[in-house]
């Protein structure tokens, strides 16, 4: 009843092309932002911020990055973890070499480093497609992590082989390092996600997004109407890797505090890919929903037995959790292969027509 667009007339193309053309959607998004900024930091405890919300925000950013490449441009990639590692290590190198540069600027700079690396590993995409390209990006995954382990320069010859977030401030507030509060790190992560999600949405609804989707849907036709495949694919790799790089930098500096290359291994690549598939290929909102599902559901399942006072050994609980989680993924993919984004869309269409079935 509340979700009606009757009476909302679009009188210009600008209004028709808005991200949220319906007023109810705008209110809904505004409400979410108000809660995320104004309520969550005050009510959520350290555990919720550190173990749930911060990883969710970071993975949502990485998932948006991968979705630009795989969902929009149609280039399957298994190198997400490696591109995230590039961002993390680049941030570490830059901020230890030039401590005076603002850490948030360093995040963005490392994004550009990751973009450069992404372009190099995107070059094979001109010749190979689909699963074969996925294998080529797998090479990036293994090579880059091996390189970061092997060459001491990347972790400043630290004997433990880890990179640690040094204390850095932004506007006088500690944002990284052991003294930064979870609230600060949450707010910074949230801001990065909001800004970059908006930028990604703008990209995909304009010329570049259409070029990506054209390459994805029918590359021959795209070429014939004047889209250059090499430039378009490499731009997708660059921007996707930029997002992953920033997410990687945030993983170490805003979430874990210190990390080895294991934090970015192949399982991270798969995890982000699952987020994109479950959330919905070719949808920015889907990336965020997918990240929420993959990061939040295991935590919910871990805590569920305790909530209903069901005593259970930890290892059994862990195994049951994995079984249920795997089952849920299969269930969702069978019910809606196009992911949460499509479910959301169907729900909105149904709401709009309610109470009529058609």
């Amino acid at each position, binding site marked *: 009843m509340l979700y009606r667009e009757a009476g909302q007339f679009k009188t210009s*193309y*600008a209004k028709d*092309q808005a991200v949220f053309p319906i007023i109810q959607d705008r209110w809904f998004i505004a409400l979410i932002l108000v809660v995320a900024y104004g309520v969550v930091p005050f009510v959520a405890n350290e555990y919720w911020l550190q173990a749930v919300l911060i990883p969710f925000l970071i993975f949502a950013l990485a998932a948006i990055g991968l979705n630009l490449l795989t969902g929009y441009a149609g280039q399957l990639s298994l190198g997400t973890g490696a591109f995230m590692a590039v961002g993390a290590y680049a941030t570490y190198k830059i901020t230890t070499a030039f401590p005076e540069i603002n850490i948030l600027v360093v995040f963005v700079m490392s994004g550009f480093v990751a973009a450069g690396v992404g372009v190099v590993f995107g070059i094979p995409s001109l010749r190979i497609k689909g699963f074969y390209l996925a294998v080529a990006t797998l090479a990036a995954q293994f090579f880059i992590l091996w390189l970061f382990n092997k060459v001491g320069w990347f972790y400043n010859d630290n004997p433990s082989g880890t990179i640690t977030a040094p204390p850095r401030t932004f506007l006088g507030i500690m944002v990284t390092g052991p003294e930064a509060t979870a609230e600060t790190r949450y707010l910074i992560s949230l801001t990065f996600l909001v800004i970059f999600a908006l*930028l*990604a949405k*703008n*990209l995909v*609804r*304009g*010329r*570049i997004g*259409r*070029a990506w*989707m*054209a390459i*994805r*849907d*029918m590359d*021959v*036709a*795209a*070429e*014939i*109407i*004047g*889209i*250059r495949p090499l430039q378009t694919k490499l*731009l997708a790799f660059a*921007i996707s890797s930029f997002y992953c790089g920033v997410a990687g930098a945030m993983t170490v500096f805003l979430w874990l505090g210190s990390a080895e290359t294991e934090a970015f291994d192949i399982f991270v690549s798969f995890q982000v890919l699952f987020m994109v598939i479950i959330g919905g290929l*070719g949808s920015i909102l889907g990336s965020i929903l997918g990240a929420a599902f993959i990061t939040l559901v295991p935590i919910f399942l871990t805590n569920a037995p305790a909530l209903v006072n069901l005593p259970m050994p930890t290892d059994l609980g862990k195994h049951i959790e994995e079984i249920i989680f795997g089952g849920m993924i299969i269930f969702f993919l069978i019910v809606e292969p196009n992911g949460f984004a499509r479910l959301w869309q169907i729900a909105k269409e149904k709401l709009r027509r309610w109470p009529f079935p058609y």
Partner: protein
Amino acid sequence: MNNARDIGDVLLKVEDISLSFGGVQALTDVTFEVRAREVLGIIGPNGAGKSSMLNVINGFYHPDKGRITYKGTTRTKMRPHEAARQGIARTFQNIALFKGMSTLDNIMTGRNTMMHRNFLWQALYLGPARTEELEHRRAVERIIDFLEIEAIRKTPVGRLPYGLQKRVELGRALAAEPELLLLDEPMAGMNLEEKEDMCRFILDVNDEFGTTIALIEHDMAVVMDICDRVVVLDYGRKIADGSPDAVRTNQDVIDAYLGVSHD
């Protein structure tokens, strides 16, 4: 029926084009010209090399030999995106739309080569990028009105019926504001009503925008009706070239279509 329009100079000239795939000779020494503002029909039995000829013209295939002169410049090799930039657009025999995108986005994509703002502006979606986007939207809406597909603007093209998909594909080609429009069997698989609509659109495009059109078609009634001139290919060779009436009575053409008696 089209005699009232003034047919201009030669817009495109193909000379001695030969093309082979391995041992198969697809085209052999084909020479013809397309004049500005005319509707040229390319006909021939199956496998005569008609689609290959279009692919050569827009740079998708590179001929083994021969020259192509377009708007006064001669070239042997060209990439498809260069052809697109120079005003050659085409549609395909099997619909080649971007299935996951809406009608509007498909047609907008046709204007991609005319949009120049870089990705930073695009990401911000402010100022020049926004103005550019809206300007092109306006142009695309004119095409949507022209083709009478207002109602399916926001529908993903994968869900549309075949006849409408063909129309959207024509819209995408038109969006690039081409000087030369290559249509590969625009009326294949359509019913009479859809064919009549398509004929009307083709003639209107030719008439209103002054677009030169080269089309491949198997429906002889359509070809004879709307084309100013017809080129006939058979086994990769040109066997006739002239007005529809002249081609219809040409003995080589009759032989190619009906076969030769061997007694």
